[in-house]
């Protein structure tokens, strides 16, 4: 359905805008989480075929004619892995934010100028 592709792309654009303009570090990590959710929505929507059903063969006529009655199972397997990796990356980024806060006591990204020349 093209509506879901449009929704996913708009979510990705909102997330990118948030990453570019926000100053609070936790909001930057939240924006990255929104980008990941939008991208996973687009990936699963690319595998949908109208009129077909879920890829679980629980009746005998599905077993016989499986290739003509199920949606594409490959994007679902990829998105399953991507969701778990996304939460692990979010946790690690939040750990960096916590350690930076413990050194300088501020959450605004404009205060961290040590690497600029």
């Amino acid at each position, binding site marked *: 359905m093209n509506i879901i592709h*449009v929704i996913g792309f708009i*979510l990705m654009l909102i997330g990118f805008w948030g990453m570019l303009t926000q100053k609070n570090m936790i909001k930057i*990590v*939240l924006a990255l989480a929104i980008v990941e959710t939008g991208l996973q929505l687009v990936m699963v929507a690319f595998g949908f075929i109208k009129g077909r059903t*879920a890829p679980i063969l629980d009746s005998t006529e599905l077993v016989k004619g499986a290739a003509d009655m199920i949606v594409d199972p490959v994007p679902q397997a990829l998105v399953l892995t991507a969701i778990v990796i996304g939460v692990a990356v979010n946790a690690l980024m939040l750990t960096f934010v916590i350690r930076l806060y413990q050194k300088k006591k501020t959450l605004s990204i404009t205060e961290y100028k040590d690497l600029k020349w």
Partner: protein
Amino acid sequence: MELQHGIIILMGLAMILSSILAMVIKDLISSVIAVGVVSLFASIIYLLLQAPDVAMTEAAIGAGLSTLIFLYALHKTKDAEEEND
């Protein structure tokens, strides 16, 4: 299975509004809850796209554990200001 257009348009509008609110609101706890709402609606859309495995994973991890990890991080970067006075 046919896709119901009306429900999907409503949920899509709710997701986009939630994500814009998450970026604009100053209070951090509300932003975290808004991102959790985006994950929840995405999990319902996965069910309408005939993907039950992905819907279960997104509901358990995205709308549950990820929101809680953000709230723990908020808790750790806020309290230290009151202790050092």
